């Protein structure tokens, strides 16, 4: 079975991301890398993809929203996502090759800080809509090309809370 790409813009819209994917050069480079299907979640965006590619080689679909994106994420080999923490964490948690596209049009951009911090540690690739075509053409989705995201340790937080709880109860 061929490989699958899933693109998600999250709960709002991110037309420049959808437009960057909906591009003949990008789509044919996906074909040549062995991808056989592409699903794009476009949210409230105005740009509806036309998918300029031979669709017998690359099966392309789009939709606006689903109750949960989990299934689409889980079946993907590569996830291209907006920089929202929820989507980023979900894709990393599933161990996917992840390209995060930062929306510079957003004010007060902590998303960019988060994407950069994770990219610095080689958990994902961070780019902009302008850089996405290049990032996808160069993309190496083999597991050796990235650092696996370690499983979370909520027990470390529980230890801190337990200490404080004991302090509160001892002082009572």
């Amino acid at each position: 079975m061929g490989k699958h790409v899933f693109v998600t813009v999250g709960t709002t819209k991110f037309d420049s991301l959808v437009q960057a994917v909906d591009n003949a050069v990008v789509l044919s480079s996906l074909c040549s890398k062995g991808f056989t299907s592409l699903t794009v979640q476009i949210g409230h965006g105005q740009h509806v993809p036309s998918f300029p590619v031979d669709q017998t080689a690359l099966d392309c679909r789009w939709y606006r929203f689903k109750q949960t994106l989990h299934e689409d994420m889980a079946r993907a080999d590569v996830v291209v996502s907006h920089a929202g923490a929820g989507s980023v964490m979900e894709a990393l948690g599933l161990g996917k090759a992840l390209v995060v596209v930062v929306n510079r049009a957003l004010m007060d951009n902590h998303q960019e800080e988060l994407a950069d911090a994770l990219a610095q540690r080689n958990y994902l690739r961070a780019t902009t809509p302008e850089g996405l075509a290049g990032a996808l053409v160069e993309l190496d989705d083999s597991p050796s090309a990235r650092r696996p995201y370690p499983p979370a340790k909520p027990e470390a937080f529980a230890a801190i809370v337990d200490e404080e709880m004991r302090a509160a109860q001892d002082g009572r």
Partner: protein
Amino acid sequence: MPQGGHTSEMLKLTSRLSPETYSPLCYVVASTDHTSADRIPKEGLMSGRCRVRAIPRSREVGQSYLTSVFTTLLAALHAAVVVVTVRPDLVLVNGPGTCIPVCVAAFALRFFGLGSSCSRTVFCESFCRVKSLSLSGRIMYLLADRFVVHWPELLVKYPRAEYAGQLV
């Protein structure tokens, strides 16, 4: 959505707490946040005696700082009622607008001897904050007994913060 993110993070952070130790347990949510109120009984740590209390938001996302002063006072009044009735040993917060009035109320009541005499506060900053603190974080840096962050980058500017590795 930002509130939903806080709820998701809080549910993950508390996933390893012992339900026996943390009972009774009270979740405080914003009165307009029905999604979180629905999620807690399904996904949250549920001790034997657990309830969900709603208070008005002190600040909607994007609301001006000036009007926030008045809405914060209203929220603080509701929060004070919750704190006086619950009398928590421990207040655990991670930074949506609802958390400040609860902490201010707990702090004030502790000061006036009305709350639990030795309640402690643990704050966990949002996972998204790598280099700077949120508004809630900057306030809670002054009030919280423990201040936990997800990124070691923040320790340079905030030495009282704690980094305990990857928590979510």
